[in-house]
């Protein structure tokens, strides 16, 4: 087998910042080659260079032995490179077949589209690679897994021989992930070259042949998947040894803080998103909700934090320390000692253009202690900002002037947590996807802070689609499926089953699908 992609001495600079420096790498034909690294390590930049979206400042790319100089993705596509982006590039109102041929219609401007031939070729690819999709179906009616299959079919339709996958499992359920991996292996066996970008180490070890680790714009090592281990990879990614499992001392739960009884949630167009949901969270415990996204987690959050969209009907009861949450506004709920870190951090938890200290204040700006005159007390604010930066190891240079958008995702999330965990008189903390898209190093800090909060006697409701995280942190685990808690693991069961994590994950997986 030859070399599919060879990078020699690739550097890419944005101003003074080197996103990639002096990267040399050979990707063998017919292999699955994974690129792992933390956010900001330069994985995306490197793949964008291979895909022609960026041009390297220095260095050379060659494809199948031929030096190339791509100026746009169009060149890369012509050279047989395809990419499945993290956010799919599909048009919802067109059918699967129409999406697949879009941009490569095999027909002149005013000619009839050869739909029949295209459908036949899709069927053939589908059969060959296990990519079952109905070509007639509208993309808007497809599941996420099916949408991804359409994206892969698109590449096959264009005869791509090198396929780049950017975080392909981020949106998939455990069984869809298995399915995708099977497809990737088939593709490899048929001679395709797969470049897989991810930060999930378990998955890399499960599916890749070769792994390259990136850190701070450089490749810190390339090795065979069979001859490496997860702790080794983690250390190469972060640059120091990392605790993959946070120390979780036994909890001592107190009285019930959050009490949800028979909660029903109906959207404006009549969809029932929560069915008789019942759960209790006690002080000093972490209640983990495991579940695939879209099973009512977002609606539960909306219901608990007074953010119901117009036209929603909500039946049932949810109370904190006996006081009902239903019908209250977010500002009132905050005053009851409830704090929330929302699922979508960038959209809901921060103001990207505000400064670091402005974001530490945002949402807590009604607290009297920060006030002076009609504005804010900058002394108090500075003291608080510096305290949080020190406590949470937030990396930023000038918190009073630096916009939040200039920080990495991990540091942004630390700011949100610092702000929410330190609210005065907090009794319930709702955490939704607290470590999504965050580096291993930062996850460690965040998990420790969550445990610390629990030890202080705060009741914590943890919603996460990462089973590992749920297992590592939770006192009790509720399995959420189609808007209800269908199964609950007791604290004893959790402690017991934790010892064989893989089995435990499988067992949870059965309850949530």
């Amino acid at each position, binding site marked *: 087998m030859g070399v599919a992609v060879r990078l020699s001495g690739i550097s890419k600079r944005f101003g003074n910042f080197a996103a990639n420096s002096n990267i040399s790498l050979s990707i063998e034909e017919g292999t699955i080659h994974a690129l792992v690294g933390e956010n900001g390590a330069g994985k995306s930049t490197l793949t964008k260079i291979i895909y022609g979206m960026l041009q390297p400042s220095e260095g050379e790319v060659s494809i199948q032995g031929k030096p190339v100089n791509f100026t746009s993705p169009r060149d890369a596509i012509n050279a047989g490179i395809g990419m499945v982006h993290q956010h799919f590039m599909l048009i919802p109102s067109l059918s699967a077949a129409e999406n697949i041929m879009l941009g490569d219609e095999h027909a002149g401007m005013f000619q009839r589209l050869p739909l029949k031939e295209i459908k036949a070729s899709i069927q053939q690819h589908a059969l060959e690679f296990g990519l079952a999709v109905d070509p007639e179906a509208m993309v808007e009616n497809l599941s996420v897994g099916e949408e991804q299959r359409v994206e892969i079919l698109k590449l096959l339709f264009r005869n791509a021989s090198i396929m780049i996958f950017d975080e392909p499992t981020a949106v998939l359920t455990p069984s869809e992930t298995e399915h995708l991996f099977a497809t990737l292996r088939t593709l490899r066996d048929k001679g395709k070259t797969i470049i897989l970008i991810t930060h999930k180490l378990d998955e890399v070890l499960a599916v890749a042949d070769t792994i390259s680790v990136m850190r701070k714009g450089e490749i810190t090592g390339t090795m065979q998947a069979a001859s490496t281990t997860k702790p080794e990879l983690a250390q190469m990614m972060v640059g120091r040894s990392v605790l993959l499992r946070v120390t979780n001392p036994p909890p001592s739960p107190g009285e019930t803080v959050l009490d949800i009884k028979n909660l029903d949630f109906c959207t404006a167009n009549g969809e029932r998103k929560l069915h008789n949901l019942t759960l209790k969270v006690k002080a000093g415990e972490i209640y983990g909700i495991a579940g695939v996204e879209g099973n009512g987690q977002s609606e539960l959050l909306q219901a608990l934090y007074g953010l119901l969209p117009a036209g929603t009907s909500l039946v049932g009861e949810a109370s904190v320390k006996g006081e009902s949450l239903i019908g209250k506004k977010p500002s009132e709920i905050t005053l009851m000692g409830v704090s929330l870190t929302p699922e979508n951090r960038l959209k809901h938890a921060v103001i990207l253009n*505000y400064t670091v200290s402005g974001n530490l*204040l*945002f*949402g807590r*700006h009604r607290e009297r202690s920060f*006030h002076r005159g009609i504005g804010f007390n900058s002394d108090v604010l500075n003291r608080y900002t510096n305290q949080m930066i020190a406590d949470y190891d937030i990396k930023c240079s000038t918190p009073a002037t630096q916009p939040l958008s200039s920080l990495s995702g991990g540091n942004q999330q630390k700011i949100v947590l610092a702000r929410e965990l330190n609210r005065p008189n907090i009794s319930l903390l709702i955490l939704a996807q607290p470590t999504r898209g965050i580096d291993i190093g930062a996850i460690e800090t965040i998990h420790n802070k969550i445990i610390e909060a629990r030890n202080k006697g705060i009741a914590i409701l943890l919603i996460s689609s990462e089973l590992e995280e749920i297992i590592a942190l939770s006192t009790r685990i509720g399995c959420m499926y189609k808007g209800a808690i269908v199964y609950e693991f007791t604290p004893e069961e959790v402690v017991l089953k934790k010892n064989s994590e893989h089995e435990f994950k499988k067992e949870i997986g059965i309850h949530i699908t």
Partner: protein
Amino acid sequence: MHRKTAQLLIPLLSIMSALAVSTLIILIAGRDPIMIFEKMFQGTLGSAYGTGQVLFRTTTLILVGLSVALPFQVKLFNIGAEGQLQMGAFAAAMTGAMLPPTLPSLSAISLCVVAAMGAGTCWAILAGVLKVRFGVNEVISTIMLNFIAQGLTGYLLTYHFAVPSTVHTSPVIDAAIIPSLYSVTGFFAKSPANFSTLLSPCVALLFWVILFKSRFGFEMRATGLQPEAARYGGINAGMHTLTAMGIGGAAAGLGAANILLGYKHYYEAGMTGGIGFTGIAVALLAGAHPLWIMLSALFFGLLEYGGLTVNAYIPKDIFMIIEAITILLVISFSALGKRIQQ
């Protein structure tokens, strides 16, 4: 640092290129650009009267610029400054004409100014209510409200309040007239510049404090930047939509007071002459920043009056073109600037 310089450089570059383009247009029109610019300078900043005229126009432009800028910070595009001006001017004229002539000046002026601001506020808040309650896009509603204001004032003027055989109302009482700077200080040679000119920078400063130094502005800007995050942060976004529009309308009302109480002293058909629309350009050029608006208003004030002074040498239409080109260049340049920064 990089951002700051770009923020300064982009408006400057766009003004420079606008000047270059206008030079070209003047050349094409067969006139001597140097002579035109010279005349323009003599007619405006080169004379006391011209300076006063420029200041008078700048004052209105600062105030209408602010009326566009504040909603802009909440991501509302207020096209309705013209209508708010008309309503404000009409309300001030009506109030001023109906007041008892014996009223002391301070109360007369205050009452008229409050009437102007109130009318501007009401007109702007209407668009806000339509947005918050019914989801009507504020661009559409403010444009429609402009037509309604035009029609309403026109009808009331023609059929009810015009002095017979004229197109204006009866003048306000003498006590309601805002004294001109000339009448008190002797400067600015009988130009319409009046005491509103001193007020307008204070209003700009006040807007700056509200936006960037107060808790209210902290919430308001957050609402504009990320409305959904603001909801999560417990901020009442609808309230901020209404207040931003309302305060903006009040500023437009003040602008109307400058024209009516400081200059015309009666309401006349077409007296606002589209200055409300120029206010949009003022706000855009300043990036909706209350302090920069003062400079941007000065620039447009110069251009507006400068165009009039060289009317004999070159059509005023040329200066309309220059203004419009400047706005287009600003928008294109700021888009370009964003791309460079990325």
